[in-house]
């Protein structure tokens, strides 16, 4: 059974910051293990002027494998599924100069089908659901200590959809690999179409559910409906007290009009 992202109700109340002008600040609890925003003092704000339903509730900015990396958790605080959503962000310094920009797609554990008759499958974040994203492809090198503000916007499609069985992940375990750790498990294709290039993204999280990094498993197999794929991610530093896993892949056969 896939690990689900569970945040204590009391924490969720604190995290409910749907206002466009409300900034979250990197303050944390007793340590990084309780912090929702890291580094401390980092301000995280939705772009003013109508961000929509997806709100950042936890974020880590740190040096990644190839420059700065942002790992974020967002929650759908609206009443409709947010489909094919992205997390677009810009980093600013203390004097409010732009330092870099990046974007990533929001991963999801739930799948939907459009009701417009097209039969299209959509990845959507349902109301109340928490999703995660890794942004590691910033165009420029940025010193983490120079970043004072993160401004984000999460565009999405508010589609008319119904939930369907999708890709599921089960039996996820962290295993020791040398000085680090990897994650193993099984991905099952519950869709009614074949899926190619399956992948699993695992986010280690701290005690309050803040994503700390990612580990990725990518396959080249094609999974027919009902097919299973045993995966193992790359080796990463052993981080966090828990983890959350998200499946992905490509539809093997195209739907064409």
């Amino acid at each position: 059974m896939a690990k689900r992202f569970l945040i204590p109700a009391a924490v969720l109340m604190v995290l409910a910051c749907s206002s466009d002008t409300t900034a979250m600040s990197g303050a944390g609890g007793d340590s990084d293990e309780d912090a929702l925003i890291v580094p401390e003092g980092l301000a995280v704000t939705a772009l003013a002027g109508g961000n929509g339903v997806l709100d950042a509730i936890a974020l880590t900015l740190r040096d990644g494998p190839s420059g700065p990396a942002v790992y974020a958790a967002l929650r759908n605080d609206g009443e409709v599924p947010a489909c094919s959503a992205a997390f677009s962000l810009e980093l600013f310094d203390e004097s409010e100069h732009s330092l870099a920009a990046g974007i990533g797609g929001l991963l999801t554990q739930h799948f939907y089908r459009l009701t417009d008759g097209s039969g299209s499958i959509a990845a959507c974040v349902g109301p109340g659901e928490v999703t995660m994203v890794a942004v590691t492809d910033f165009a420029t090198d940025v010193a983490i200590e120079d970043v004072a503000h993160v401004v984000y916007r999460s565009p999405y499609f508010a589609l008319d959809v119904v939930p369907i069985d999708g890709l599921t992940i089960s039996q996820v375990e962290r295993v020791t690999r040398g000085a680090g750790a990897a994650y193993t498990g099984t991905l099952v294709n519950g869709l009614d179409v074949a899926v190619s290039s399956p992948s699993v993204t695992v986010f280690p999280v701290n005690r309050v559910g803040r994503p700390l990094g990612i580990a990725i498993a990518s396959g080249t197999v094609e999974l027919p409906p009902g097919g299973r794929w045993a995966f193992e991610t790359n080796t990463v530093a052993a981080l966090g007290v828990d983890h959350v896993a998200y499946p992905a892949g490509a539809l093997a056969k195209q739907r064409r009009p």
Partner: protein
Amino acid sequence: MTKHLNLPLNRRTFLRGLGGAIVAAPFLGSIMERAAKAQSMPGAGGVPKRFIVMFTHYGCITNNWFPTKTHGPLTADDLMPTTLAPLAPFASKLLIPRGIRAMNEWTANRARGQGNDPHTQVVGSYFTCQPVTPNSNDPFSFDQATKFNAKPVGPSLDHVMAQQLSPQGTPLLLNTAGQNDNTQSGISYSAAETLFRGLNATQAFSGLTGLFKQDAPMSPDTYAAIRGKSVVDLVRDDIDTLARFDMSGSDKMKLEAWKALLDQTGTVMASAACTAELGTMLGATQANASKAGMGGLGSDRLTTKITDTLDGADIYSAIAALSASCNANPVIFMKYPGNYLFKGLGINTEAHSVSHRLDNAGMQGSCLPNAVSMLLQIDTYYTQKFANLVKMLDSIPDGSGTVLDGSATVWFNEMSDGNAHNLNNLPIIQAGSAGGYFKTGAIVNLDPATPAAADMTNGKSMSACMDGTANQMINGTTQSTGTDPKIATAPINKYFCNLMNAMGVKAGADGFPAKGGAAEVTKFGYSDKTEDFIGGDGAVAGATIHSPGEFAELRAT
């Protein structure tokens, strides 16, 4: 007794005489420097050419943007009823190529391009005409880890041109709000999958000051040159004086040769000045650049007044005009930001959402009240900025004309209608003929479906959300506010070929631009048929340039 000038009149002697005794030395110095620079650029021997682009996001209200007339002479009267009205004074110097389509359109059924994202694949392919990678085949893909990070598999037009034309080998990319772009908004790629970073005002201005003629107050001659007087006019009296000397036949021939040289290079020498004075006249000063380049978090830097008459965006235009005048770079792109909040226009909803006629990022829902009015405001603002840029360029004498005349200055928009994301029927307007290469004072209908028709459609941007209330619904996936995809589909690749040829870019034997080539450019990009982009690089067999060559209809002759 008549003085006999018997010494050989070589080039150095002549210049020393002119520079030391007759003509202001600083002026001559700048002449030689300018001439030397100009000779390294296309159009050597004439006025240097520049390609200046203003790029904005999220389309326009097409019904109001385009003049009703779609083919024929362009007059101020044609522009006055449209959002292009601020450009009416320049009608004779404008060219509107109608019916152009950009490549790789996103649709919900993947009918005209890849399935990555309505903006990521569009901006990535816009100036590259290349597909993006990684490819996504599902418009609502759950393979989200890569679909928004897709980048084109080749370089963009600005880099292709700059590799041949710019001393640096790179374009000048100005980010007009000091923003950084990601793959959902970036347009400039120096190579495959390599996003190019632009400059803010402070950075760009700093790069120019080193080119200024320092400690040289403007002499009358320099001023006259700035006003477009040729050098041969300025030194005519001195040449006449020399000609009265009793000199040998050989020296007379040399003097005539010098006069001829001055006549030939006069237009270059009298080209636009690169001085702090010109910068001040335009508004491109260190102080203004600093103000315009200040941090943009939470503020509307574009519309903030920097001087009594210029806002932040205008300062970038002034820097672009000064850069053109300094021949700092013949390829200049001014990139306006995406996801912008035009607080200064009284608009409190972010521009991308407004383009969908919504108050949120959802791309579907109840109409934002007065959304169309807001979009018209934004369209008018952009037009005013382009008009100000055009005015600046047209105020700088250059040879027998102005910097504008020697340039192709083009306003491109990411898409046609912002809600529909359609890439046919693109709003494109050009100012300047690039030294006589292009027609001006004209609208040219290039649409293969309605060739030269004067009544082609202006689109359907006003088909929804028009009553000013939230009572209607709008859907960004249905393309209801766009233009029929069968109309206005002339490939943008051909226009890019026009622009490259106008600027002097050369191609290899295969017709694709190639440094060191000698042929005319006839091909650009992966394909000139947007359907060839479905599935990404290599997925469609036979993807190619189906219609090589430029648009002959846009040529002056």
